[in-house]
């Protein structure tokens, strides 16, 4: 069994040290290999911790706990899933432990939160937000919008749209169905959009405002109003 693994690894290492090769080297006593794993994944572990806990201080502690746990349990990593999925699960569990909340049932909140989809703002956005605000401020606004999300939506959003995990991987990491994850993700995306829209919408011009009103009132009225405006 061990011999077979070594052969597979020799083939993989040639393509650049992937996670599994680093895991194997760590298990064989190579400390540098684990340090490489930490360097490679620290941002993900930090962001996921932040997604669960919502503040930097707790996230930092959870991040450290997660890596220590991963190190101590590397020998038990079965390779049925990707290393990143395994590490993300450890991270989420470490973060939840920190928050002392068990995830053995769907929180009651979810039914309430899911009632109506948040889609109030329906104006177009400025074509180039970076011109408006600059990259630094934009990033701040994005971070704020994400932080404002309810925790279960924030998790889904960070895993999918910040860490760019697949839906399957994200669902597996959180321990829910893909359907449940997609439902949370939809709401998270709409909420982030809503928050950012406040800063990025282009205020409608007068004629467009008339047209919008007309959409409710009827086309002939709109035509009449437009003729009045154009005179």
């Amino acid at each position, binding site marked *: 069994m061990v011999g077979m693994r070594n052969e597979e690894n020799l083939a993989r290492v040639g393509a650049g040290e992937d996670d599994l090769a680093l895991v194997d080297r*760590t*298990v*064989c*006593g190579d*400390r540098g290999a*684990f*340090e490489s794993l*930490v360097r490679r994944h*620290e*941002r993900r572990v*930090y*962001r996921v911790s*932040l997604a669960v806990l919502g503040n*930097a201080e707790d996230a*930092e502690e959870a*991040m*450290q706990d997660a*890596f*220590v746990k991963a*190190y*101590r*349990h*590397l*020998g*038990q990593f*079965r390779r049925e899933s990707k290393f990143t999925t395994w590490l993300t699960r450890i991270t989420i569990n470490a973060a939840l432990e920190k928050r002392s909340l068990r995830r053995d049932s769907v929180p009651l909140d979810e039914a309430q939160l899911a009632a109506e*989809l948040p*889609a109030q*703002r*329906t*104006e*177009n*956005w400025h074509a180039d*937000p*970076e011109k408006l605000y600059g*990259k630094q401020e*934009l*990033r701040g606004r*994005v*971070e704020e919008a*994400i932080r404002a999300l309810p925790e279960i939506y924030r998790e889904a959003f960070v895993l999918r*749209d*910040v860490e760019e995990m697949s*839906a399957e991987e994200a669902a597996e990491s959180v321990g829910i169905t893909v359907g449940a994850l*997609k439902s949370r*993700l*939809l709401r998270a*995306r*709409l909420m*982030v*959009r809503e928050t*950012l*829209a406040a800063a*990025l919408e282009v205020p409608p011009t007068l004629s467009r405002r008339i047209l919008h009103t007309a*959409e409710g009132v009827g086309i002939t009225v709109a035509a009449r109003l437009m003729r009045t405006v154009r005179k």
Partner: protein
Amino acid sequence: MKKTLLCNEVLENLSCYVDGDGSAELRQAITQHMARCRRCRVILDTTQRTLKLVADVDPFEVPLAVSARLYTRIERVLSEDFPTEGLTGA
């Protein structure tokens, strides 16, 4: 039988549509709805812009001090132990 979608049905499936998921039939129905509904078109467009913006700004860096403290702790743990348990197992 062709089904015409309502705005709230389109909204419920918006995330899947953005990700390229969903049956061909559903996707076509949504595309057709978009062609004649400004409101849903704008919501779709700005949702896509949201995701692009998030990717562009690349939020939540690990602060240098946080990273440094992490490595200090890892060093300590690595020094205490030698190889992890379970080496001869799976």
